[in-house]
């Protein structure tokens, strides 16, 4: 079994949030929770740091380094940086550059087809197995909160993201 997993990659679900990105691996739970920040060297476009390390650089970078959030309002603002970030997270989870995991990614509800497509393509370019699956955030939040979404009964979920408001 490990050999198959090694080649195909482990199934992962990614909550690509404006503030934090969370990665869930099938059978293990949430394995990664890091700020959605990438620092790149603009001279050659390489990623210097991703996640926690990159967040510390925000507002403190010299001219040739740019640390920013590739997502704005839940949608991709910088495609290349987003792809770099996803690639970094996939590699971190698998400790291998060849993994092709099956991937589910969250998008906010009510985004346009173009924005959804961008998320899907960023995931596929970053190494997710095609097709990358998309789930709407309110739906994911409802399932994650233990609501019975498949039943013929109304459930209302209000999901306010974009940075946590209080430390737990």
């Amino acid at each position, binding site marked *: 079994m490990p050999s198959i997993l090694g080649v195909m990659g482990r199934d992962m679900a990614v909550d690509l949030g404006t503030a934090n990105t969370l990665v869930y691996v099938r059978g293990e739970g949430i394995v990664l929770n890091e700020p959605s920040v990438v620092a790149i060297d603009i001279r050659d476009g390489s990623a210097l740091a991703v996640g926690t390390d990159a967040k510390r650089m925000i507002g403190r970078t010299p001219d040739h380094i740019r640390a920013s959030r590739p997502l704005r309002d839940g949608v991709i603002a910088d495609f290349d940086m987003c792809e770099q970030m996803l690639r970094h997270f996939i590699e971190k989870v698998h400790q291998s550059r060849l993994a092709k995991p099956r991937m*589910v990614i969250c998008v906010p509800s009510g985004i346009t087809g173009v924005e959804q497509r961008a998320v899907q393509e960023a995931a596929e370019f970053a190494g997710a197995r095609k097709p990358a699956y998309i*789930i709407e955030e309110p739906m994911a939040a409802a399932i994650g*909160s233990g609501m019975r979404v498949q039943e013929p009964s*109304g459930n*209302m979920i209000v999901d306010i993201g*974009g940075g*946590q408001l209080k430390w737990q």
Partner: protein
Amino acid sequence: MAVISLGGVVANKSVRVGGDELDNSIVQFIKKEYNVALGLRTSEELKIKLASAWVTEELYAEVRGRDLITGLPKTIVTSSSEIREAIAEPLSAIIDAVKMTLDVTPPELAADIMEKGIMLAGGGALLNGMPECLAHETGMPVCISPEPLHAVALGSGKSLESFDSLKGVLFSSNQV
């Protein structure tokens, strides 16, 4: 925010207001009131320390920023009621969106929600007084998701664990 039934979204409304928007409005407010420029990181810390949606006990915090007149660093003291004033606008945008969603929800489902309550998730659920504020504005019971910050990741993870039964809620490229 969305109303969900039978594995599908019945009514939804998305406002592009989140924690970031609150950070920005704190920066704007401090600039206007104190003539001090704050960094986004500092305003996020301020939000975490002081922000509330409902009247709570008064807290104070010291923040450091750059005085816009002298151009030198400066320390100011601000209070939770000031921060509440600062975030009032984005907060009311969220509440309006909840009301608008309820407005377009079919009556049968609205009755179900009245019984079960509105579930709050995401970092915003942790804002002090947010459930009270929403319950007051909508007249509906409000509860907080067991793990508000992880709800989305756990839910999408669950869709992987039981991929076959929950496949209906996912989209893939062939469907778009």
